[in-house]
């Protein structure tokens, strides 16, 4: 059931500026007898912020893991930056991953490494694409300055607060200057003030670098502030799609369940 009309046809670019960076069509994924995604569709355009909302266990994280090849879908079409993810070999997939930033739900900083080493880690594989004259030290500092944590460069992840960890993870995501950033629950586990800081940071990054962002969340405040379009994922399919205002005004009970305070 399509509770709310999409604000535009999300499967086809409408103008040259609206070139798709992500296309997902009829994505299906099951775990044993439990179908999680039952034909999910999504198109993300350049410089666009799209939020995918859904209840816990609705398959949001599974969907973005399919985008970076961490999970293989049972069927469906997944294209990122013009390349069909399922057909790529290891080398090609790694190259594509250099253009995709991924912010994990729990930050996923490497415990045994300092903040500096955490940020240098993606450069090991993708050093060439940063240019022959690029200095890792400068790149690390620049990324940390973007999130306001240059002073934490030699700290260990265990010494950082939850908000700082999330910002360092964001800096690690930014260091390769990705064209598209995938955020998996960027504000989960954070207090409201830190959540606002992270959301503000995400907006600034989007404005500064012009990246496209796909944000997985069930934080309505996050969706309200950052989204240009929201896709509601219910029972493994797109249940509703529209702007925050459109969905907040919906009288559909399943949509209301998300947006009613």
């Amino acid at each position, binding site marked *: 059931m399509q509770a709310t009309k999409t604000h535009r046809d999300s499967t086809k670019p409408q103008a040259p500026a609206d070139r798709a960076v992500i296309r997902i069509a009829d994505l299906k994924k099951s775990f044993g007898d439990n179908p999680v995604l039952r034909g999910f569709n999504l198109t993300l355009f350049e410089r666009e912020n799209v939020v995918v909302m859904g209840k816990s266990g609705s398959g949001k994280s599974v969907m973005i893991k399919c985008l970076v090849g961490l999970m293989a879908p049972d069927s469906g079409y997944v294209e990122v930056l013009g390349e069909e993810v399922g057909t790529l070999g290891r080398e090609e997939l790694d190259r594509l991953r250099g253009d995709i930033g991924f912010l994990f739900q729990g930050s996923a900083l490497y*415990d045994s490494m300092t903040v500096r080493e955490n940020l240098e880690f993606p450069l090991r594989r993708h050093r060439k694409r940063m240019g022959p004259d690029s200095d890792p030290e400068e790149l690390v500092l620049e990324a940390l300055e973007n999130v306001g944590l240059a002073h934490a460069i030699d700290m260990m992840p265990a010494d950082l607060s939850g908000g700082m960890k999330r910002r360092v993870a964001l800096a*690690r995501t930014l260091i390769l200057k990705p064209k598209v950033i995938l955020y998996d629950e960027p504000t989960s586990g954070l207090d409201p003030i830190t959540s606002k800081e992270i959301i503000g940071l995400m907006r600034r990054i989007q404005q500064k670098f012009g990246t496209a962002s796909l944000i997985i969340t069930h934080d309505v405040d996050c969706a309200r502030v950052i989204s240009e379009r929201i896709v509601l994922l219910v029972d493994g399919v797109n249940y509703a799609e529209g702007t925050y205002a459109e969905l907040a005004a919906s009288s559909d009970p399943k949509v209301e369940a998300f947006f009613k305070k």
Partner: protein
Amino acid sequence: MAAFAGRFFRVVFQPPYEFREFIRQCYQIGNRSLLLVVVTGFIIGLVLTLQSRPTLIEFGALSWMPNMVGISIVREIGPVITALICAGRIASGIGAELGSMRVTEQIDAMEVSGTNPFKFLVTTRILATILMLPLLVLFADAIALFGSALVENIKGAMSFRLYFNTVFDALSYGDLVPATVKSFFFGFVIGLVGCYKGYYCKKGTAGVGKAANTAVVLASLLLFFVDFMTVFIADIFYDL
């Protein structure tokens, strides 16, 4: 686990080589296990000598003490005890570390950043245990023999020089080579089981605990199996 081992052999010789991580793991596994292995080896040497003394005296065979202790330590007790200690310390440590990396999505983060986590985390740890375990066994053997010599020196007035000369006279390549080869296999088993249990850890902190626990149990069991196999094969070549 056979497929996991097969994957290890497929990727271990493929570049890029994670040399820095390998050295770091050698330090973690070797240096940090050294004290435990040394203390245990020393006590084993002391106890084995103290327990054997009365019986050897009864049979008038006390002069055979260095031969008996030397051969039993080098052939069997040193490698097996060291491997069991390392199974407890290293396999559980690797299982818990990789398990927690799995549940906190650090392994996924590594994959997304373009680094092959199997190569970075698994091959380096298995190679480090393969290399470090024989070295730890050598240390344990040496310290156990020193402990034994100490008892003989204090209780029986045998000089250290005489004790060690007798031990080295009693030992042959048939004792040293199979024991050393066996230690490489022990290292492989410990590294493989720890990495396998951690890498495929189920979600949640309970899964991490289970990974660490089952890594120790399975590694210990497999060590005895490998021990039997190597002794069986060595018997064919060296007529033990």
